[in-house]
């Protein structure tokens, strides 16, 4: 066939293929392996506030933020006592008026909550429990294993075991590497969620609690059994406009070479030994968490467009999840160690990465492109270029963006353009620098 015919056909087919959304090389980032930091997420809440029960229920449904490993422990919700009720509860009712007053009060009282949180983490030996979880420790027998580390650290399992057994330099390096990149990147997020009470402004909230108190029953059809308290012939309720304000505090597990060596030498046991188990239990308190910082959500209201009236639980979930995601994105921007790396999933016809508005990306964000290189058992990340998002092509991946019919909700990924660097390929990681 004449070459020119072939070119036209090839071009046409290629265009057709592109229109169908098929790119030459595209990968599913869910299936892609890359190391992530880990999060244990806790809710601290005033159990007397309105919607406390609903907020708790919805909080427990929110998964660990995207691109982090799940290091949750069994305790996820903590109530605040009257004596140390966060100022947020006080401040929100002043939001419409004395914003500055609210902030001042918050600073004075809310700051005190950090002390209580650190106390809680210490008293309950949360650091030690996170270490135990890293090593899959059986609390009855004391037996530990490296399965989680091998899995999340993306090590070749048999090679890892071999090197460790041989106590080779490479094996030791792998352990150190796991310590630094994995265990040391374990974070605790303590989320203080307060409902923004509109009761001063609306008369329709009286029975709202009872309606929502029966969310569970409504969907099993036993609505006439709802334990709604004393309804006083209250008027129609609505929870449109439901808002929360969330203050998220970030803590990091302290883990360095000497802590690691002490653990391996004295407490790691790969066999059952109840006496040994007792030793670690007594020493759990020595693993600590340090406070990194905190952020507060804007308290912006979420649109409930796209949420059917039948789902007030989704309205609450959306309000909470959006605010939490906003905080996680802000923490990532503020604190270097909390930043995530996300893999490039395709480079043809454009560079695409499955991050978006949820991660706080704007047109002005800039990212470095990293290549993970393994050397002597350690993984190092080398910068190989920089990219920035393309205007109008930022994916709206916030919770329920699709239902809201938000612009960009159906993109699936954000498109980036190269600013500097050589040829990129799928699997390289990007990390925000601005």
């Amino acid at each position, binding site marked *: 066939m004449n070459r*020119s*015919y072939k070119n*036209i*056909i090839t071009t*046409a087919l290629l*265009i*057709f293929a592109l*229109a169908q959304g098929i790119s030459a090389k595209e990968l599913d980032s869910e299936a892609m392996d890359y190391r992530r930091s880990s999060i244990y997420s806790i809710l*601290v809440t005033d159990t007397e506030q309105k919607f406390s029960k609903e907020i*708790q229920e919805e909080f427990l449904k929110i998964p660990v933020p995207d691109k982090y490993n799940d290091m949750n*422990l*069994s*305790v*996820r*919700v*903590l*109530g605040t*006592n009257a004596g*140390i009720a966060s100022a947020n509860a006080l401040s929100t009712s002043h939001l419409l008026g004395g914003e500055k007053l609210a902030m001042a009060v918050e600073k004075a009282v809310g700051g005190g*909550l950090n002390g209580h949180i650190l*106390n809680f983490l210490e008293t*309950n030996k949360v650091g030690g*429990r996170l270490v*135990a*979880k890293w090593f899959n*420790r059986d*609390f*009855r*027998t004391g037996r530990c294993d490296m399965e989680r580390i091998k899995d999340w650290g993306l090590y070749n399992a048999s090679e890892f075991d071999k090197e460790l057994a041989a106590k080779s330099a490479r094996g030791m390096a792998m352990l150190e590497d796991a310590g630094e990149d994995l265990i040391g990147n374990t974070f605790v997020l303590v989320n203080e969620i307060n409902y923004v009470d*509109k009761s001063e402004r*609306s008369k*329709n909230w009286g029975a709202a609690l009872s*309606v929502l108190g*029966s969310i569970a*029953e409504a969907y099993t059809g036993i*609505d*006439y*059994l*709802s334990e*709604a308290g*004393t*309804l*006083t*012939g209250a*008027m*129609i309720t609505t929870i*449109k*406009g439901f*808002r929360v304000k969330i203050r998220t505090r970030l803590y990091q597990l302290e883990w360095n070479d000497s802590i690691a060596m002490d653990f391996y030498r004295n407490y790691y046991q790969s066999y059952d030994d109840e006496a040994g188990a007792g030793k670690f239990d007594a020493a759990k308190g020595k693993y600590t968490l340090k406070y990194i910082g905190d952020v507060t959500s804007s308290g912006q*209201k979420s649109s*409930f467009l*796209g949420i*059917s*009236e*039948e789902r007030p639980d989704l309205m609450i979930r959306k309000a909470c999840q959006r605010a939490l995601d906003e905080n996680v994105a802000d923490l990532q921007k503020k604190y270097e160690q909390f930043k995530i790396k996300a893999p490039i999933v395709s480079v043809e016809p454009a560079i695409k990465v499955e991050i978006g508005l949820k991660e706080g990306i704007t047109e002005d964000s800039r990212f470095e492109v990293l290549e993970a290189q393994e050397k002597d058992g350690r993984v190092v990340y080398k910068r190989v270029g920089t990219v920035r998002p393309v205007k*109008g092509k930022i994916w709206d991946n916030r919770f329920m963006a699709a239902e809201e*019919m*938000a*612009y960009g*909700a159906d993109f699936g990924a954000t498109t980036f353009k190269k600013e500097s660097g050589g040829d990129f390929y799928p699997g390289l990681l990007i990390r925000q620098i601005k």
Partner: protein
Amino acid sequence: MMYRKQVLLFAVALFCSLSAFAELMPDQNEKGKYGYLNEDGSVAIKYAYDDATAFVDGRAKVRKGNKWGYIDEAGLEVIKIKYSEIGEWKNGVAKVAVGGKTEDGDLTGAKWGFIDQNGTDVIKPEYERIGRFEDGMALIEKGGKYGYLNDSYKIVIPCKYFSVGSFDDNGHVWVNEGGSIDKNTGAVKDGKFGVLDRMGRVIVPVGYKLIGKYLTDKAIDEFNLSLCTVDRYNVSAFEDALRKEISVKYVKMYSGSYRQLYFGNVAYYEVVRAVSNARNHKTYNLYRKVMGEPVRHTAFRGFSELMAKNYRFELCSKLPESESPYYWVSENDKGEKAGLYDFNGRLVLKPNEYQCVGKPSDGVVIVADDFGKKKTKINYINLKTGAKVFQIDQEVNLQNDKGNFNDMFYDYDNGFIELSVAGKCYLFDKNGQKVSDAYDIIGDFYDGKAIVGKDSKYGLIGLSGKVDVALNYDMLWMPWESDVPDGLITAKKNGLYGYIDSSGTEVVPIKYRSVYHYSKGLCKVLDKGGWGLLDRNNNVVLDCKWKDVYYPESKDVRYVWVMDTDSLYYNFDREAGKIISRGYASVLNFNEQGVARVNAYDPDAPNNLGRLGYINLKDEVLVPFLFRRLKDVDEAYEKMLADGKERLDETDAYRYSIYLGTERNKYKLTDDIPSELWDY
């Protein structure tokens, strides 16, 4: 040349079709206004909007000021921008609001309706409220009155009612006119009640002060009725106990005995007033005494005060489940002098004719006058004909509690009723005709036969009233599952037991020391060696050599739990002919997956009932014996399956038990949470 041209045309055609895939993108300018851009960035639709969404099927929702509408890709309004809110599209129709005021996302004071894709009104927006659709019906409110809309957008119940309930499983809803709200309870009171169906048809016309239903035991359970006696009727010492609050379990216990076949010669009625725990509700129960124990004969209650609780919300109250497809109605507050409507809306008994009306059964209802007096009059009404069953009312002395009465009153069943007259029982039909001879006792019918007794000998009569099986037995018992046909009747003769069928044939010889009622196709019998199982044809399923046998699910199962001399249950493999497990204190049958929940043996626990766990047919532990509560061990098992595991080790099981409970999330920030609530 030809080929080249064809290929070029193909490419051009592709380009043309591809351009249809190009979407306009909303864009915001520096002034904050929205418009739409082409893919190449050129302006397709001017920046004229205060909000804009993506195009879907060629239309996009846009806002100007605080009004919404839809435009097409040419920028033309296809739905006028005049709505305060436009909801989701369902089958080409969307809920809309006009007017009103929005504050913080909360729209108040608007009028609601529905439009189609062309913006034409399907339901004119003149409703203060349109609720969500539930089972195809949505509550509507106009001018402070309520009605219902169906999902074909037809107003089936116009907005003229002060209050309405929610539709129940029969498609019925209660309505109220002229009522008011009790400020303390939120219930509807006063006014008149009625019942309508999903098409708006009248089932019970609006005109009654009270409307009630005959509740199932389950419904009573759910409303947690409690009972107390009314002391204006002389009550015996036993009934004194009823003055205390008794839960519905008590009622159920005695309701169960209603189906037992031990009838005494004495029965009398007393009315006890039942008061609902939660809501000061009144129910009248007609009690019959059998063998000295009160048995609930019938119950009716008014629901109106209770049901209106959530009247203004989508979660409106539904009429409860009922045992009998009738509504009783009353024009007075106490529910006296009731009338009856059937579920098709037919008035089958006029109100104000009888002081007390019982529960209809088999198309017949018991009625009473001069209740509580020396000569209380009792009769039955045939609801089909409207006529009294008996020409003369039965007179019963309800003042005397010592019970030298010789009348018994039951419900009609299979077209007949057992009644006692002058100390003897007869079968009467619905026309009041005696169809049987006199007996000391007549039992309930099963499979067309009823057990009868005379001079301490028992036999069977058929529906004709004639004796089918001669009264030769010392005692007879019906099968356990009275709703499963073709069962066997337990028979006793000369101190020994066996089984007969309904024709009187001795299917299992009467030679056993003891037996259980026929159940699940099996006869559990006690011979000199111990307990064993036979099938309906007298074939041995399990030899008689056990201290006890746990009824298997059917006669064909291979594995049966047997109790050995140590009082523990063991899994017996019928094919292998031997025991294949350890002993357990309590067991359940293996399910289809070959898994059973059991209690371990614990000599220190009450009844030796140790903790719960799950095992398989190989006697391997799948869920360790860590759980005290049924609910927890069952949930752990379900979670194990959901996690794709085949078994749990003790640590896993322990962790599951932590996650199953909510205890772990009930602590405060200042607490030192117990170790046993942490999973690591």
